[in-house]
């Protein structure tokens, strides 16, 4: 199969061998499970249980407004084990803001009893819409790390290519690699289900980076007699980016401000695909995921199937936590962010935890001024001009930054990685994007306030007139009477 190349990209040290050699193990059942209400991109959920309620594994504990997530960009949250709801309160959550958010806390009873599960024995007999609703109900979101509710990406019409993303291009992460090696059949069947849900796509491609030969082998074997193509793509960061992968596989560019669906392509991650398989064939909602626990800060780096809501501390302990962890990072080596504490819960988007040992991670060397070398532009996979973006974001000139397509930036970090002056370029872009989004929100609020103010002026004016009118009437009455 012919492959294409996207612009730029960088070759990175994978650090994958740390965790990629050991089979996926089951993480222990913790005493307490913590479920933040927002674990995906979109609308937060609302608790539908109360403190003191008994819950079963797989039972929905927080639902979208109106209890129908299939119509919204949102996904319900399920208890990942049986037990009792002991608190619904503010708890620190894994988020770059380091803020607290409302969480449902469940004390587990050790029985791990499932609620009644609704499997679909023959999904082909159901309409795509019905399968999609089932997937929405199972709380499945993009497990590659982005956390976009999956059912929303199954809605579009006229899709001819379904891509299953097994590129896994970020350093340190190996959960998809292990999953592809150990459960290729599940992934393959999940892909067929997704295909059906999209109305039967012509093509289905599973893409694997060529640094994962065993995964490629395993998938190729099970896909042999099917129409699913398993494709090896060159290892280059960020091949796993949706747009980059589409370019590599089809040669097509997704236009600015467009979604892949507009050119007939939909991309889902391999673990998401497995979650769909489990949800449909076993009726099992998203209650666990595979997480890479790695870095020199643990004795046995490995992949664990972790119940969502498990505190990170327990998982680290199970992997032989060392005393000299320097930093705890959630996500991969490029796009992950540091966490301030280890009692945070594992959420749907936790694909990797890096516990770094002394000197393991690059400490940013002292900052130097930009020398206008343009190295950043050469590696930007989106063809942006990172240097221009940097100047405008730094000067808070958001209009110009937007004119240079700030919002197309995918935060991949290639530019900052190659910058010889060690400028934290992505931090500037994130800052600017957040400011622009906030000011749009405020602008909307201001417009409403203005309308209300003008209406008030109108009302006050009207009341004054009415009062004057009444006075006149009364005066007339007195005159004539």
């Amino acid at each position: 199969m012919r492959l294409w190349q996207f612009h730029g990209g960088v070759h990175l040290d994978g650090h994958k061998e740390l965790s990629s050699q050991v089979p996926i193990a089951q993480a222990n059942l913790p005493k307490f499970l913590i479920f933040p209400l927002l674990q995906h991109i979109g609308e937060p959920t609302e608790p539908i249980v109360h403190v003191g309620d008994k819950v079963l594994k797989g039972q929905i504990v927080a639902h979208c407004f109106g209890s129908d997530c299939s119509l919204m960009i949102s996904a319900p949250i399920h208890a990942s084990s049986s037990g009792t709801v002991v608190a619904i309160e503010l708890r620190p959550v894994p988020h770059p803001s380091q803020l607290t958010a409302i969480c449902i806390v469940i004390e587990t009873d050790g029985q791990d009893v499932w609620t009644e599960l609704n499997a679909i024995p023959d999904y082909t007999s159901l309409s795509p819409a019905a399968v999609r609703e089932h997937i929405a109900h199972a709380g499945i979101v993009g497990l590659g790390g982005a956390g976009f509710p999956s059912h929303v990406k199954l809605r579009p019409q006229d899709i001819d290519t379904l891509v299953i993303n097994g590129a896994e291009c970020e350093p340190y992460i190996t959960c998809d690699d292990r999953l592809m090696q150990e459960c290729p059949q599940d992934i393959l069947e999940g892909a067929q289900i997704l295909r059906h849900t999209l109305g039967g796509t012509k093509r289905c491609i599973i893409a694997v980076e060529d640094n994962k030969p065993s995964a490629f082998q395993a998938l190729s074997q099970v896909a042999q007699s099917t129409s699913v193509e398993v494709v090896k793509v060159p290892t280059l960061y960020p091949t796993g980016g949706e747009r980059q992968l589409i370019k590599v596989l089809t040669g097509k560019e997704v236009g600015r401000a467009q979604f892949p669906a507009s050119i007939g392509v939909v991309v889902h991650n391999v673990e998401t695909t497995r979650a769909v398989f489990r949800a449909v064939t076993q009726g099992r909602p998203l209650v666990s995921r595979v997480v890479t626990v790695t870095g020199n800060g643990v004795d046995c780096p490995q992949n664990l199937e972790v119940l969502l809501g498990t505190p990170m501390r327990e998982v680290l302990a199970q992997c032989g936590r060392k005393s000299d962890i320097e930093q705890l990072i959630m996500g991969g080596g490029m796009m992950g962010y540091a966490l301030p504490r280890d009692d945070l819960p594992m959420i749907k988007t936790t694909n990797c935890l890096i516990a770094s040992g002394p000197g393991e991670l690059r400490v940013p060397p002292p900052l130097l001024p930009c020398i206008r070398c343009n190295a950043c532009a050469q590696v930007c996979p989106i063809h942006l001009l990172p240097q221009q973006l940097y100047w405008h974001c730094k000067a808070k000139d958001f209009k110009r930054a937007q004119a240079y397509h700030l919002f197309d930036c995918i935060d991949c970090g290639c530019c900052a990685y190659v910058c010889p002056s060690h400028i934290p370029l992505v931090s500037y872009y994130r800052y600017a994007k957040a400011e622009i989004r906030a000011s749009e929100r405020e602008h909307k609020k201001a417009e409403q306030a203005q309308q209300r103010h003008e209406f008030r002026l109108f009302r006050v004016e009207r009341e004054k007139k009415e009062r004057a009118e009444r006075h006149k009437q009364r005066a007339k009455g007195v005159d004539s009477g």
Partner: protein
Amino acid sequence: MWIVIGTLGGLSLFFGLLLGYAATRFKVEGNPIVEQINTILPQMQCGKCSWPGCRPYAEAIIRGEAEINQCAPGGETAMLAIAHLLDREPKPLNAEDQVVADTKLLAVIDESVCIGCTKCIQACPVDAILGAPKFMHTVIAQECTGCDLCVAPCPVVCIKMVPVPLSLTTWKWPYPNSG
């Protein structure tokens, strides 16, 4: 439940229509630049710029009677946007105003103390306070702009401005502190 939804829906429809009507009927045919500045301003009508509202301040800027950095709630963002629009040199906010800009506030009425005098309702420029004479009042949190104009008129001092806590959806990445 349905009655509540019906009533609220009906009410919002009614007010929507009324607002729409007011918007066309009272459309201000003003100076387009004043209009543009006005859309940059946060529409709190708080008077912190020392003008009696956002549009009067916008007009004062154009008449050359006001500086571009007087809107504290709008903060640096509004100042820069105005500077950009008028092609003027940016002028930093004074430190006090910067603090105002950085903390979003919300009025909260202590309902156990409120005597239902309606003074705050008369002061609120955006009709964000609900209540009738002799009944306690409440602030519609979503509509409150945090202007604090209702605080001073209250004879029993039962209105407090409280900071709106940051949430995961309103948090912003900070300005990088180096480079």
